[in-house]
C-alpha cells in the first residue's frame, strides 16, 4: 500500500528539468524582447520622472496650497483641508518631503494608469457576459497571488527600477477599479435604461449619459481603493527600486532603525488618509442628487 502513503510525485530530476525549462524559456523570451518591452514603457518612465521633478521643483507652500485647494473643491469640508495641510507640513518638517514627492508622483501615475486601463476594462466586462467570465478569474489571481511572486518575472524582464515597480503596483491596485466599474454599470436601474432606449438613445449615448454618470459613485469608490492599494504597495515596490517613502522603511527594517521606520510609515499613513478623505468625500458629493426630502 505504498502508493497511499507516498504521494505520486514527479521525479526529482524531472521536476528540476521542468522548472529549468520554464526559467530558460522565460529568459530567452527576455533576451529576445526585453529591450522592446523596455522601449515600450519608456514614455511612461519619462512621464514619471518629469512628474517627480515637477513636484520636487514646486515650492512647498505652493504644493500644500494646491492640495488644500483640491481638498476644498472635492469635499467642501474645512476639517479635511486643514488636516491635509498640517499633515503635509509635518511630513516636510520631519525631513521626508523629497521621499513624499516621489511617492506622490508614483501614486499619481499609477492611479492614472489604473483608471486608463480599469475603466474601459470594467465597461467591457459590464457589457459582455463572456468578457466578465474571462476577466473575473484573472482579477481573482491578481488579487490573491503574493505580490513577491509577480515581482520575479517583472524584474527578470525589466530589471530593477521605477518602471517594474510601477507595473507591480498597477497589477496590485488595478482589480478594484475594474470590479467596481463593472459593478457600478451593472447596478444601473433597468427601468432608466429602458427609458433611454424608448427615447432612441444609441449605445454610446446610453453609456456616456446614463450608465457612467450613474455608476460614478462606484467608479469613484474604485479609484479610492486603487489609491489606497498603491500606497500599501509602495514599501514592497521599493524593494525593486522604486524611490520614495518605502525605501527608508526598508532600510529601517534591515538596520532596526525604529524611529525612522515609524516616521516614514506614519507619512505613508498620512498620505493615505489625505487621499482617502478627499476622494471619498468627492465620491459622496457625486451622489448628492440621491438625497432629497421624503422617500
Amino acid at each position, binding site marked *: 500500500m505504498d502508493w497511499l502513503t507516498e504521494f505520486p510525485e514527479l521525479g526529482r530530476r524531472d521536476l528540476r528539468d521542468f522548472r529549468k525549462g520554464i526559467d530558460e524559456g522565460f529568459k530567452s523570451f527576455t533576451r529576445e524582447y526585453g529591450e522592446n518591452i523596455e522601449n515600450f514603457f519608456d514614455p511612461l518612465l519619462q512621464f514619471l520622472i518629469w512628474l517627480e521633478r515637477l513636484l520636487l521643483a514646486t515650492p512647498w507652500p505652493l504644493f500644500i496650497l494646491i492640495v488644500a485647494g483640491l481638498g476644498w473643491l472635492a469635499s467642501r469640508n474645512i476639517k479635511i483641508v486643514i488636516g491635509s495641510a498640517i499633515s503635509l507640513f509635518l511630513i516636510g518638517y520631519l525631513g521626508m518631503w523629497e521621499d513624499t514627492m516621489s511617492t506622490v508622483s508614483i501614486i499619481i501615475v499609477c492611479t492614472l494608469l489604473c483608471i486608463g486601463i480599469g475603466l474601459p476594462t470594467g465597461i467591457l466586462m459590464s457589457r459582455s457576459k463572456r468578457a466578465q467570465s474571462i476577466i473575473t478569474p484573472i482579477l481573482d489571481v491578481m488579487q490573491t497571488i503574493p505580490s513577491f511572486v509577480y515581482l520575479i518575472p517583472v524584474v527578470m524582464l525589466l530589471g530593477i527600477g521605477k518602471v517594474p515597480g510601477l507595473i507591480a503596483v498597477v497589477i496590485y491596485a488595478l482589480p478594484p477599479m475594474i470590479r467596481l466599474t463593472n459593478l457600478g454599470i451593472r447596478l444601473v436601474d433597468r427601468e432608466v435604461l429602458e427609458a433611454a*432606449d424608448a427615447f432612441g438613445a444609441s449605445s454610446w449615448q446610453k453609456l456616456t449619459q446614463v450608465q457612467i454618470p450613474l455608476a460614478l459613485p462606484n467608479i469613484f469608490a474604485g479609484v479610492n481603493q486603487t489609491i489606497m492599494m498603491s500606497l500599501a504597495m509602495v514599501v514592497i515596490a521599493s524593494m525593486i527600486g522604486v524611490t520614495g517613502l518605502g525605501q527608508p522603511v526598508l532600510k529601517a527594517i534591515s538596520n532596526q532603525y525604529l524611529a525612522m521606520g515609524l516616521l516614514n510609515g506614519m507619512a505613508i499613513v498620512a498620505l493615505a488618509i489625505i487621499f482617502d478623505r478627499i476622494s471619498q468625500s468627492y465620491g459622496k458629493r457625486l451622489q448628492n442628487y440621491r438625497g432629497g426630502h421624503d422617500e
Partner: protein
Amino acid sequence: MSDMETKIEIKNLYKIFGNDPQSMLEKVRGGVTKDELNDQYNHVLGLSDINLKMPAKGLQVVMGLSGSGKSTLIRHINRLIEPTAGEVWIDGENVLAMNEKSLRHFRRNRASMVFQKFALLPHRTVMENTIYGLEINGMSESKAKKQAAHWIDRVGLTGFEENYPSQLSGGMQQRVGLARALATDADILLMDEAFSALDPLIRTDMQDILLDLQKELHKTIVFITHDLEEALRIGDQIAILRDGQVIQQGSPQQIVLKPKDDYIADFTKDINRGRVIQLKTIMKAPNDQPGPELPGEMLVEDAAQLVTESPSSQARVTNDAGEVVGVVGINDLIRAMARPDIDSRL
C-alpha cells in the same frame, strides 16, 4: 368609431417568453392555453394573436389585470420587445421591419413613452430630464431648454427646473415624465400605467392634465391601466386584455352596457354607470312634453342632476346641430344608473 383614421394597427401579434418561442408558436396557434404552455412546456404566453386598430388622435386604453400582457403589448409599439410573430403598422410602416437606425429615428421623433415608475434620470434635474429626448436627437442645448420650458410650464412645474427627481413627490415626478415625453413633439404617446403609482387624488389630477393637454394636442395616446374607472374616464376606445388575448374592444359605453362575458361583467358591475353612459344611448322618440334641452353626449349622471333641479320630469336630447332628437325621462336616467344585476331582479 369606425370612421376614424387608424394610426396604429397591430396584426396577429404573438409573444412567447422562453428558450424556444418559435416552436411553441405552433402549439399556441393550435390552441394550447397560457396555463398549459406554462405547466407543460415551461414557456410564458405573453401575447396571443392580438389584432387592434388604434384611432389617430384618439386615446386608446388597454386594460387588464396584472400579468395579462399590457406592458408587453405597449412595448411592441416602439419595439422595446421583439415579437415572436406578427406586425405593428404605424402610418403605413411596419415597425418590426425597421432597421436599427430607422427604429432609433422612430423612437426619437414619432413615439415617446411615460413609465409606471417614472424612470427619470436621477442624476439630472427636472430641466435636464425634460430635454433628454431632445438632447439625444442632437438639438442644441439652448433650443432644447426653451422648448422644454414650455412643457415644464404646461405640466405645472415651473419653478422646479433645478430640482432633482428625488426632491419631488411622486405626482410631480410623473409630471416630469410627462413633460419629457411631450417635449419631443412625437405624435404618439405611450403610457404604461403612468398614473398607477400615484395616490387616487393625484391620479385624478394627472388624468385631468392629460385630458386637458389632449384637447389641444390631439396625440395618438396608448394608455395602459388596470383600473376600469380610469379606463372609462379617459378612454375613447378600450381594449380588454386577459391572458395575453384581447377579449373585448369598444367604446367605454359598449364595454359597460354590453360586457362580452362574465369576466368583463364582473369588472364593470361596481362601476358608476351614470358617469359612462350618454343620453343619446338611452333616449326615446321625442314627444312634446317640456324639459331642459341637453346635448346627446351628456352623461346620465349630469343629466339626472339637471332634470331633478328643473320643474319637468324629462330632458329633451339634442344633436350636434341643436335639434331635438329624443327625450329621456327621470326614470330612464335612474334605471340607466342602476347596476345590471339589480336591474335583472326588477
